[in-house]
């Protein structure tokens, strides 16, 4: 009994010592020494792994390029945390990055839900948080109130939904549409609401609205319902895991009208799951296309291919790359020793910054104003269809 007590005391002393040691280690603030620490809190494993991995690859490429010159003699250092595609892990990661690693800027997460889980921490700790690809409008401002420390590199959901609705009406000449929503995702609901508004405003009718939840595998019963409503067009603003199965099962049950979605479809896994045949006659809105003949884009694509064994960068990689330049541009203007608050002010005043995903300017809600691309799947590959300006 006594022995146990002693052991307990020793254990707690050593634990406390460890904790204290940890504290003194992490006292260094993000911009001390010769490095500027950037935290990355991304989906490196789990359902969104393909997004997070791409973002990291893009960021690492950009940071490598930026560190050749450095800013005021300082170099960037990336501190990575895996949020396992779960909101609770994302919150935990943000807490670690702000209180333990003391980073200057946080990047992440790749999905809206996991970014929303960190917004509160960024505002409380006054550390800028930039999501490369979280498109939900609530991330940067909610109910008319701007989240001061939260930014993004991509355009927002309403824009993707609006672009898809206009494309369906004007180019595909659709008069009726069905919407199939992932009801467990903020992203999906945001796109669907914007699509519905723009499509009905333009004189179209939504003939069916159905929903599913993540991890569903059998969609046939609901697809039979959609089929009997006979829509000209189906909008599925969801993620590749389920979209792949939905497309496959939809084509098998004889729905052959065009399907369209947002950047959540953008993953090589989509083609593996759905198969190239099911992907015929489907479209996505996206942030950029690797096939866009634009000079800046082609420069990025060849640098990326050189670094990652001839892999073609998807939009997530492009936005990860752009995020690093977005941060670098702000820090350049604020100075290498800038505090997180000064960096935030500099981010806010970004205007006319030329990035791979287009020329960027921030509006008063911290949302970038820039162009969107529409891509079409042909033989299982994305082909650049057209570019839509805001």
């Amino acid at each position, binding site marked *: 009994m006594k022995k146990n007590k002693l052991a307990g005391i020793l254990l707690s002393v050593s634990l406390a010592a460890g904790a204290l040691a940890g504290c003194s280690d992490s006292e260094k603030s993000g911009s001390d020494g010769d490095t500027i620490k950037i935290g990355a809190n991304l989906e490196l494993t789990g359902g969104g792994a393909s997004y997070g991995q791409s973002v990291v690859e893009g960021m690492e490429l950009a940071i490598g390029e930026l560190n050749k010159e450095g800013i005021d003699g300082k170099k960037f250092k990336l501190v990575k945390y895996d949020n396992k595609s779960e909101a609770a892990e994302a919150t935990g990661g943000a807490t670690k990055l702000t209180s333990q690693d003391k980073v200057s800027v946080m990047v992440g997460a790749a999905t809206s839900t996991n970014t929303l889980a960190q917004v509160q921490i960024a505002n409380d700790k006054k550390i800028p948080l930039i999501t490369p690809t979280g498109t939900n409008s609530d991330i940067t401002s909610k109910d008319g109130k701007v989240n001061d420390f939260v930014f993004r590199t991509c355009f927002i959901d309403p824009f993707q939904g609006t672009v898809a609705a206009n494309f369906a009406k004007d180019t595909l000449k659709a008069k009726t549409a069905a919407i199939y929503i992932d009801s467990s995702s903020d992203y999906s609901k945001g796109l669907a609401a914007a699509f519905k508004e723009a499509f009905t405003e333009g004189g179209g009718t939504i003939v069916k609205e159905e*929903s*599913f939840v993540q991890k569903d595998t059998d969609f*046939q*019963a*609901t697809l*039979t319902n959609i089929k009997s409503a006979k829509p000209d067009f189906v909008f599925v603003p969801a993620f590749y895991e389920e979209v792949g*199965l939905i497309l496959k099962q939809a084509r098998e049950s*004889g729905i052959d009208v065009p399907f369209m979605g947002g950047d959540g479809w953008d993953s090589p896994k989509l083609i593996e799951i759905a*198969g190239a045949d099911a992907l015929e006659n489907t479209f996505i809105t996206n942030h950029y296309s690797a096939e866009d003949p634009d000079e800046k884009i082609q420069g990025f694509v060849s640098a990326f291919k050189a670094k990652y064994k001839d892999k073609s960068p998807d939009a997530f990689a492009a936005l990860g790359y752009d995020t690093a330049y977005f941060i670098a541009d702000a820090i350049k203007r604020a100075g290498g020793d800038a505090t997180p608050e000064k960096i935030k002010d500099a981010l806010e005043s970004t205007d006319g910054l030329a990035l791979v995903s287009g020329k960027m300017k921030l509006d008063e809600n911290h949302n970038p104003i820039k162009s969107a691309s529409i891509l079409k799947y042909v033989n299982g590959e994305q082909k650049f269809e057209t570019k839509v300006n805001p």
Partner: protein
Amino acid sequence: MELFQQLVNGISLGSIYALIALGYTMVYGIVKLINFAHGDVFMVGAFIGFYSITVLDLSFFPALLISMAACAVFGVIIERIAYKPLRNATRIAALITAIGVSLMIENGMIFIRGAQLEAYPTNLLPSENIDIFGVSIKSQSLLILGVSLVLMMILQIIVHKTKIGKAMRAVSYDAEAAKLMGINVNNTISATFAIGSALAGAAGVIFGTYYIKIEPLMGVLPGLKAFVAAVLGGIGIIPGAMVGGLLLGLIEALVSAAGFSLWRDAAAFVVLILILIFLPQGLFGKNKREKV
């Protein structure tokens, strides 16, 4: 016509549940243990099938057999390590262990290969649509239904016509008395786990070819649904699992058809609750009185 299409959808979904429920119900019938790790053996089976197809370049049937064999061994190992030491412990201790084993397999799999999903090759089996009066039936769903029926019959024959089956029934009736009659109880229970897990492995590979997407947590929901199916049909009764699975699939399809697709999973568990309240022995079960 739409209703018939929905019934076809329900039956094809239900045959998957039935396939998983067969193994569940068999283990329960013999050992009186709800093996919650069954859904995870199903997941391991799907992955073994996937790697045999992609890495070893095998076709569907060899991959199915490899997966069944590997899962049989895996099931016996689980039984020997986790359940055997608890043979004489309380029922609840074994049940909690089963949940622990289930969590361990899921997270072990994530630890080994990560949580990302894999996609089965789409060209494993010919997939054609058969149209009958405007109702389209997939050839693959017919195959699943056929495989489930055949496996159910084989299982019935093993349990009722073979020596090992006789031993299983004896152990299930009274393990002590069976031991006195010279039956090797340990081997009999291992055989039960081997057969049950092989069925789960087969279900995993078939699920993979049909639904394409597999991931380490894929066994959780189908496992629970199969449990509901087994209870619905009367747990421990082999034809009951088949009927329970098909019924559950039909219920889910009809709930979705009525426009309540988000309530589909809830419907399955409402069925479980209703069955437990009003018909605890299940559709095929006999009402046995507890012996005093």
